[in-house]
């Protein structure tokens, strides 16, 4: 190894925050598994992440010691459960630097969070006295992009169908970047909301949003960022990001399934009509009509996923303990390593940015004309777990002219040895389908 001296006074290599990957791996019981006689090589964290012992223990402990419904009881267990649930909200708020804890709405996942916003618009559109920012009708526009996950496409298509508004979208460049060249024509006075993915779950692209945000402010629209693939992997600060809403999902960030988050600016959430009706979201109910609680309760009808929220709080503690900057750096190194290693595989075509700049640790590719199903099957026989298919982003597959892609995605517990195992597996794939 050669070493290059970085001049004194400049940031040194050792200044980069780091963690011990072997120690982190020891926290994840599932990583001990063998698959088809091989050590598990899990390269599908963009789909769902694994959960550390610290999170599993909290989940277990909640049911074993503190189980009760929240916000409805004066008894001790009820108070403990409520404190744990609200404590988790405070942890999540701090994690994304939300100005107020009440800006964090617990949902089932990102999909539900996006649908809550879309249906709040829908409900507002039916009421002449609703806040005009949420009212949509013919002539109004909703803007998304070609690189969205289906959960940030379909809710808006349905909203436009219900209200007569028009759906428009940013295209994607050949390099897999958001094509902002038509920004001024796309985001206009007619635009009511722009809803964009922050980090693409298929191309890995990290979208720089500041130009778009500036334009959104200029025309008086609202901005939602789908942070499902960014909150787990990089430090996110909602004040800095300057969006109006962000959504993310617990199971991709070391938390359990069944819990997600809608963050919205306090003033916006307060002005939005409710979506689901039921217990916990009301102020008062008579047989004729009801009035509604303030956010976040207004958007959390019924018994929420209590244990899941508490465990998400534990996941946030875990990630904070390792350090989000360190996780981001670890994945950057893995990405650079993988892009380099993929370069040595004949006939491998990467979809999305091929340099480790403005991209995360999610890499989709094609191996010659071997179908991704077959690639995934051979890799599985070697213990290597990758995702194959359209990744809930069919428009991206169409954009690049393929029905499906193979995707490897990394997280804090991923090692370069696992990337080596993938590359060796690809060699095996080529042998079977030469």
């Amino acid at each position, binding site marked *: 190894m050669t070493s290059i001296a970085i001049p004194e006074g400049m940031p040194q290599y050792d200044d980069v925050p780091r963690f011990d990957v072997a120690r982190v791996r020891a926290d994840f019981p599932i990583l001990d598994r063998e698959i088809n006689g091989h050590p598990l090589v899990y390269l599908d964290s963009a789909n769902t992440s694994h959960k550390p012992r610290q999170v599993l223990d909290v989940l277990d402990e909640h049911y074993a010691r503190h189980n009760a419904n929240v916000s409805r009881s004066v008894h001790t267990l009820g108070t403990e459960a409520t404190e744990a649930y609200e404590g988790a909200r405070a942890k999540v708020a701090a994690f994304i630097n939300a100005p107020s804890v009440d800006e964090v709405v617990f949902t089932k996942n990102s999909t539900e969070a996006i649908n809550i916003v879309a249906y709040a618009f829908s409900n507002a559109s039916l009421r002449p006295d609703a806040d005009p920012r949420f009212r949509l009708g013919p002539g109004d526009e909703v803007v998304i992009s070609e690189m969205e996950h289906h959960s940030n496409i379909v809710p808006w298509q349905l909203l436009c169908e219900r209200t007569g508004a028009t759906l428009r979208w940013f295209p994607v460049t050949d390099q897999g970047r958001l094509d902002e060249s038509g920004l001024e024509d796309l985001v206009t006075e007619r635009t009511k909301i722009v809803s964009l993915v922050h980090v693409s779950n298929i191309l890995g692209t990290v979208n720089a949003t500041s130009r778009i945000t500036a334009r959104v402010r200029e025309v008086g629209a609202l901005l939602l960022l789908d942070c499902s693939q960014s909150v787990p992997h990089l430090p996110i600060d909602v004040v800095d990001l300057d969006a109006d809403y962000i959504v993310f999902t617990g199971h991709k960030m070391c938390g359990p399934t069944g819990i997600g988050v809608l963050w919205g600016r306090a003033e916006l959430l307060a002005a939005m009509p409710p979506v689901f009706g039921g217990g916990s979201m009301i102020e008062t109910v008579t047989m004729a009509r009801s009035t509604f609680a303030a956010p976040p309760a207004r958007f959390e009808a019924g018994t929420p996923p209590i244990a899941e929220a508490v465990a998400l709080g534990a996941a946030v503690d875990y990630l904070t303990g390792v350090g989000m900057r360190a996780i981001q750096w670890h994945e950057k190194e893995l990405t650079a390593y993988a892009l380099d290693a993929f370069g040595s595989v004949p006939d491998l075509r990467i979809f999305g940015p091929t340099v480790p700049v403005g991209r995360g640790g999610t890499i989709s590719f094609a191996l010659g004309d071997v179908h*991704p199903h*077959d690639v995934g099957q051979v890799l599985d*026989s070697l213990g290597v777990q990758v995702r194959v298919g359209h990744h809930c982003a069919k428009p991206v597959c169409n954009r690049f002219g393929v029905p499906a892609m193979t995707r490897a995605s990394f997280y804090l517990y991923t090692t370069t040895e696992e990337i080596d195992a993938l590359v060796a597996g690809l060699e095996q794939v080529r042998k079977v389908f030469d």
Partner: protein
Amino acid sequence: MQLDQLYQEIILDHYKRPHGRGLRDAEDSGDRVEEAHHVNPTCGDEVTVRVATDGTVLHDISYDGMGCSISQASASVLHELLRGRGAREAFEVHEAFVELMSGRGQVTPDEDVLGDGVAFAGVARYPARVKCALLPWMAFKDAAARAGVAASPEVKA
């Protein structure tokens, strides 16, 4: 699980050198020609199967599609097994193939009935891939029904 149970030579052969691929018009102008397009929504595989028949004999079964080795090889085997057969007989083969694929690897296939289709016995052990193997067969069933030949009542698929 053994990978070569799934990717039998026969399957890879049909995949690399598919038989009867490409959509064709009827040779006999008296035939009815109908097709069906099926998609596997979880993986995006697509296949179109076209049937040319006079109502009793399936004169041609042609197809086109894109997808994994299993779905494409399955279409090739379908073509080879059912083309030129009587409708009734064809549905018996169809039923045997569906039964094999639904058997989770517990069904022993009859080579006299299924020909190269027996190679798919291993696929039945991979639940995620059964749909791939069945895709062209389901499209065939729809296309045949459109062309006026449906599975006889006593045959249930």
